[in-house]
C-alpha cells in the first residue's frame, strides 16, 4: 500500500497585522512562545513553524480567533514553496 505523504501544515503570520495579543500562543504552546514584546515566536526558530498533526485542531481555532486575522495555515511540501530571498 502506497503511503501518500500529506503536506505539512505551516503556520503563517502576517506580521503587518499581528498585534501580539497572544491567543495563538495560548492555543499552540508547543509550537509558539512569546517574545519580550508579546509577539509570537516559533519554538523551532523558523519563519513558518510546522504544526504537528495533533495540534491542527487548535491551530485552526487560533486562525479563526485571531482578533487581527493575522494567521493562516499553509499546506507546503518542500517543492511547492519556491521562496527566494527577496532583498
Amino acid at each position: 500500500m502506497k503511503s501518500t505523504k500529506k503536506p505539512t501544515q505551516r503556520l503563517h503570520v502576517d506580521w503587518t497585522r499581528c498585534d501580539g495579543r497572544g491567543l495563538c500562543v495560548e492555543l499552540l504552546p508547543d509550537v509558539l512562545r512569546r517574545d519580550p514584546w508579546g509577539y509570537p515566536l516559533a519554538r523551532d526558530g523558523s519563519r513558518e513553524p510546522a504544526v504537528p498533526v495533533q495540534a491542527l485542531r487548535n491551530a485552526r481555532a487560533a486562525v479563526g480567533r485571531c482578533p487581527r486575522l493575522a494567521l493562516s495555515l499553509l499546506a507546503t511540501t518542500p517543492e511547492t514553496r519556491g521562496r527566494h530571498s527577496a532583498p
Partner: protein
Amino acid sequence: MTTNHVAPPHMPRLLAAQGPALAAHRLRFGDCPKVNAPELISLLDAAGLSGRGGAGFPTGRKIAAVSGRDPVVVGNGAEGEPLSRKDAVLLTTAPHLVLDGLELAAGAVDADKVYLYVPTHLVPDVTRALDERRASGLDRFKVTVVEAPNTFVAGEESALIRRIEGGPALPRDRTVVTAISGVRGRPTLVNNVETLAHIALIARFGPHWFRSVGGGNNPGSMLVTLSDATAKQNVVEVPAGTPVADLIPRPEVVRAALLGGYHGTWVRASALDGTGVSGVGIVHTLRIDECGLARTAEIADYLAAQSARQCGPCTTGLPRLAELLGKLAYERAQNTDVREIRRLVGLVEGRGACRHPDGTARMIRSALETFSADIERHRHRSCEAAEVSAV
C-alpha cells in the same frame, strides 16, 4: 539570434556606452537582436547571469518561473540604498541597454504590461529614452514609468508591486511567490535595471563573451559603488569576484569595509584580499582614524527610521538596537548591553513582512564581530580610531 557587426566590448561593458542617446547606443552596441523565450532563457542559463539587485537569483530560472495569464514585467531602478549609485549611473549613461533588456524580458514572458520603476529625479532621463525609441519605432511594448519614493524600502519587491498597483511603496505580506502572483495577482517578473542591461549585452554577444571575465560561479562584470565617509561616490565596472582590496585606492588607511550596503557585512581590512566582490556591488570603506562603532550606530539609526513600521518586531526592535549601539559607541556599555544586542538581533530576524530586520541584523552581527576589540576599548573609555593619528 542575429549577429551584431559591432565588436563586443571587453571592459568596460555596461559603462562602454558613449552616451545616453539612442544613436550613440546603436553605434556602440548595434541593434537589439530578436530572441524568443526558450533561446533567451538558454542564453542566460549558459551565461550564468544572476540578479544584480541583491538576491542574486539566476536570471534564466527567474524568467522561466513566470507562468500564467497576462504577466507583468518590471525594471527596478529604485535603488533605495544610500550607499549605491550604480542604477542611477546606468539609467543616465546607458538607459537604452536597460530598455533593451526590459524588452527582451517582456518578450520572453509575453508580457501584458511593462513598468519601469525609478526615483523621481531619473524620470526625465528614462522618459527621454522612451520617447527616442517611440520616435524610431523601436518600442515593441508600452513601458509605463512609475515613480519610486526616496525611501530605503521602496525598492523591496512587494513594496514595488504595491506602488505600481497605486498604493504606498511599503512591503506587504506574501504567501505566494511573485512569479505566480504579483501586480494585481498576475504573474510578475521583477529585475534590477543592471540585470536587464546585462541581458541586453548577452543577447548581442553571447554567453561565452559574458563569461570571458569574472569567476567560475560568479561570471561576467558588475557595477560597484565605492564610497567612504565623504559624500563622494564612485561607480566602477569590474569583473565579478574581483578582490575587494583591488578596488580600494589606499588600502593602508582602511580599517574595515562594509560590503553590500546597509544590509551588508563589515569585513576587516586584512580579509579584503580574500573577499571577492559579489552580490550587491557596494563597497564602503572606514578609515583607520574613523570609529566603526560610531558608523554602525549611525547606520542603525537610519535603518530604524526607515522601517515601514508595519510589523511589531521591526518597529520595536530596530530603535532599541540603534539606542544600544549608540551606547556602545558613545557611552560606557555593559556586558548586559552587548548581550541584549545579540538577543535583539535574534528576535528581529525573520519576523517581518520583508527582510529589512534581517538585513539590519546581519550588518549589526558583522559589526559586533569585526569591531569586537573596539567594543572592549570603548568600555575602557578609549577607541581604536583615536589611537591612530590621521594620515
